[in-house]
């Protein structure tokens, strides 16, 4: 490695800021990173307002406003390697669920009819306008590397930065969250879908075996499975596994319902229908990307219309 430090820019677009905090969560290891990396533009660590030229650029968040689009384009121009960092950057993330509603509905609900505040003005100055849709950044600029995760666990951040700096292949697997989970998948006798309000699931056994929906088997492991190992079912925050993304007939709901039906006495179609009715939750992290949105099996608009039709009746 040469003595000259590798220059790094980071910026956040439309996101919660958690990915940047995950960078700082490298703890002492960040000192190791700083041995060979010079951090320039980084909203949580430095006060650099412009975008100096850099070798690596990390972008977190998706494109939702004009500011986001501008920042993404400038970062692409100034950085040699762009990493789409975190689920929002890769798949559009949680706010991708905004696709289910129009921009006007969202503005109206947040600023006019919010049940917890009393404001009645839609902001028109200082903030850039909300775009029509949430766009993952690879539809705006070319992305060189993707690191999904909400946020990616520092284990993976360190591994990917280290491999980039050393010029080697990263040692990562494409396992699902189940690969890191400690629960035993047994064949259970659950007859109906349950949730944590109904019962506290036994921590020795898989959520699916006990009739709880858990997306672990359909989700890429970029987290080291903290949720299922601490009593909370996986919500799929790192996005779908590679086989779901590449195979047209596989989908989050078909994968989970197939496995859950094999582990319980619940019919596969019942689970599938349940997941369609709760699609905004089950597909929350990945629905904005074309990789999921363009799937022939993904009919979110129809599912939502069905549910809302039933409510209105």
């Amino acid at each position, binding site marked *: 490695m040469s003595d000259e430090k590798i220059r790094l820019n980071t910026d956040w677009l439309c996101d919660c800021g958690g990915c940047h905090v995950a960078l700082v969560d490298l703890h002492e290891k960040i000192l190791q990173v700083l041995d060979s990396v010079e951090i320039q533009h980084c909203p949580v660590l430095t006060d650099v307002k412009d975008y100096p030229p850099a070798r690596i650029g990390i972008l977190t968040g998706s494109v939702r406003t004009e500011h986001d689009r501008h920042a993404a384009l400038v970062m692409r121009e100034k950085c040699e390697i762009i990493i789409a960092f975190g689920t929002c950057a890769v798949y559009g993330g949680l706010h991708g669920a905004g696709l289910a509603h129009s921009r006007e509905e969202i503005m109206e609900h947040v600023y006019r009819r919010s049940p917890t505040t009393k404001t009645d003005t839609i902001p028109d100055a200082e903030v850039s306008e909300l775009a029509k849709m949430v766009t993952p950044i690879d539809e705006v600029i070319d992305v060189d590397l993707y690191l999904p995760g909400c946020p990616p666990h520092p284990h993976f951040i360190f591994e990917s930065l280290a491999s980039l700096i050393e010029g080697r292949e*990263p040692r990562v697997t494409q396992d699902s969250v*189940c690969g890191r989970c400690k629960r035993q*998948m047994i064949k259970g006798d659950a007859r109906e879908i349950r949730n944590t309000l109904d019962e506290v699931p036994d921590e020795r056994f898989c959520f699916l075996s006990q009739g709880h929906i858990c997306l672990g088997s359909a989700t890429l492991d970029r987290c080291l499975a903290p949720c299922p190992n601490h009593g909370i079912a996986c919500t799929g925050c790192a996005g779908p596994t590679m086989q779901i993304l590449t195979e047209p007939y596989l989908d989050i709901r078909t994968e989970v319902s197939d496995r859950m039906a094999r582990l319980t006495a619940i019919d596969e179609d019942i689970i599938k229908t349940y997941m369609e009715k709760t699609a905004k939750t089950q597909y929350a992290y990945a629905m904005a990307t074309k990789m999921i949105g363009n799937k022939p099996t993904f009919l979110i608009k129809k599912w939502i219309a069905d549910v809302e039709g039933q409510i209105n009746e």
Partner: protein
Amino acid sequence: MIHMKIRDAACRGCRFCVDICPTDALSFDEATQKAVVETVEDCIGCLSCGFICPSGAIRHEGHHVVKNFYRNLYFSRRMEKFL
């Protein structure tokens, strides 16, 4: 010659692979509650076990790769970029 490997640490003991294998090449070790490769010679490389495995713990090598007639090209172009 097909090689098949199940990573013990990732195996959750669900027996899906044992149940789905058309040639009974896999078996289940009751003592460790993990699936094991019993007779790899019987494996026909259909990859059913690899696809049903919830944790992606099963890897095959040396099998005949059948070209898929439909792929999500949009994603496949991006796949090698994933860290």
